């Protein structure tokens, strides 16, 4: 039993990473109604930029991290402001296809610019596992869990209790009406793309030390992040955080008790099961059907 809980705790670090990725997805989806399939590639470019800042510009880790976040926001803002905005009234399929095109393009560009060999960046915190209530946990995992919970709560507070959040919720409910009410919808949507890309950038920066930094690094993480967002109902920020931790723990348990090579498959089975039984996720509300 102790082993079991040790595996649960061991999954929380990755869970936090999936939570960040899911948060970015959900935030963008809430305001713009678009699932950004290119988020993983964008986040990878942010991380590769961080790598360059560390290794070529020789910046200290914290400064490089801050600069990488700024670049993430520019990438996200540019994507919405210049590309997605032009097709915001098009069918869902067109929007999905554009983000898929961006996924292919950005991953390819990352390969051309940075090459395909794996690179390494350091963990935010190094150090041996510490003993917390008889369970072992690394300082880095503790940092990730704390950061996830902190950022998740901050986003929740902003979204639920501030004027900015109110505007974003209005946009999520009905963009046309929000626009008529005088809310600068384009600004907020572009802002959420910027913030969402920064959040997935954090996920990529946190996962890179474990996976090895390369252009297609996030392809697999993306599946876990989609699963986390779906478990969380694809519209709830708290759901995304909870979903992220659940998926992180579940995949660690799968690796421990079933097979390390079947994680993706079993997580896919989780996606199928959730979508089949509760198409709106464990935390989602039933959408009002059209017609």
């Amino acid at each position: 039993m102790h082993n079991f809980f040790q595996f649960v705790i061991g999954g929380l670090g990755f869970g936090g990473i999936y939570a960040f990725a899911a948060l970015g997805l959900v935030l963008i989806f809430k305001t713009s109604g678009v699932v950004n399939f290119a988020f993983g590639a964008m986040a990878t470019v942010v991380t590769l930029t961080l790598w360059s800042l560390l290794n070529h510009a020789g910046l200290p880790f914290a400064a490089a991290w801050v600069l990488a976040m700024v670049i993430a926001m520019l990438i996200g803002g540019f994507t919405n402001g210049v590309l997605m905005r032009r097709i915001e009234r098009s069918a869902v399929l067109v929007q999905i296809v554009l983000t898929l095109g961006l996924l292919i393009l950005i991953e390819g560009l990352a390969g051309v610019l940075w090459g395909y060999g794996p690179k390494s960046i350091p963990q935010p915190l190094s150090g041996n596992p510490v003993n917390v209530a008889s369970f072992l946990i690394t300082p880095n995992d503790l940092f990730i869990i704390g950061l996830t919970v902190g950022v998740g709560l901050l986003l929740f507070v902003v979204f639920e209790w501030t004027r900015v959040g109110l505007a974003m919720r209005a946009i999520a409910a009905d963009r046309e009406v929000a626009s008529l009410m005088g809310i600068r919808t384009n600004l907020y949507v572009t802002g959420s793309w910027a913030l969402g890309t920064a959040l997935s950038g954090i996920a990529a920066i946190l996962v890179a030390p474990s996976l090895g930094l390369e252009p297609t690094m996030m392809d697999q993480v993306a599946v876990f992040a989609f699963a986390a967002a779906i478990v969380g109902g694809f519209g709830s920020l708290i759901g995304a955080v909870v979903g992220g931790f659940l998926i992180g723990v579940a995949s660690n348990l799968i690796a421990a008790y079933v097979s390390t090579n079947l994680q993706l498959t079993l997580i896919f089975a989780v996606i199928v099961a959730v979508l089949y039984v509760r198409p709106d996720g464990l935390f989602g509300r039933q959408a009002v059907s059209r017609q």
Partner: protein
Amino acid sequence: MSELSLSAARRGALVKSIRKLPLGLRMLAIVAVAIVAIVFPAFEGSDSFVMYTATQALVYGLAIVSLNLLVGFGGQISLGQAGFLAIGGYAAALLAIHVSGLPIPIEVLGAGAATAVIGFLLGLPTGRLRGHYLAILTLGFGVAIPEIALNWTSLTQGRTGLTVPPPRIGNTIFPTPTELYYFSLVVLVICLVAIFSILASSTGRAFAAVRDSEAAATAMGINVTATKVLLFTTSAFFAGVAGDLDAHLQGLVSPDSFPFSLSLFFFAAVVLGGLASVWGSLAGAVILAVIEAETSSSSGWEPVILGGAVVLLLLFLPRGLADFPYRAQQALRRWRGRKPRAAVPPSRAEVS
């Protein structure tokens, strides 16, 4: 940019974009393509790399048309079409290895049928899912299949993969690049005839009806869920056949043969060729195969070209490449100083 709206003009189901050209010109183009496809090996047959690329284009052609059936004609999404190819490929390899003397038509049908069963199962939840959820579901499928193939070593030999013998009829085997090319061409043509036959029938109309309005389709007695499941099954069948052809072309199926990027490239090719355009999809397949052949040595430009083309196309030529002849014709008219035709392509009714 109302032109960018998919709902308006992009999804010309039974109305194909090529219809915009005069009938004679269209027939001429089809005959020309057929002649080129048939006599091609007479000129290039000695160059096995060219023959390989040409055969790859045929295989991709079937795969991309099968995806377009789903996306363009049926309004559904699959980001895991390579997963279907994988199932077809493994089924073909297993049949060819374990059933000695199996006639090739049976093998091809078997690979298609095995894949169709999986397509049926994957299609079951789609009655309730649409848009983003369907995209994520199929993406997960596409990523999971190679992983399953990797781990089910008793069946698939894991990473080593399965060696696929060349196609055979009776005691004759067809191992040369030119023979593989004709084998793939014949299968592709049969599949295209079948697909056109389905699209022109009440079944094809039901696919399009569900795509255009689920409510109206229901009121007209169409079981929307059953129709979507049938669509997934049909698409998977043809993708499985493409997987069979691919297995023979490569001579090997392994988990690495079907990366997620392949599914993405297929999707890009559907968009490049134009939704709901079979001929456009075939053109997209040629482009995909050629880019792959030309960029395989220089590292990594293939995704840049394909992804960049998709993004640019969505912004500048939103109806896909199938629209290009019509656009070119219009540009030519403008260049000659004549008044361009109306934005709405004239229909037969207007002409008569």
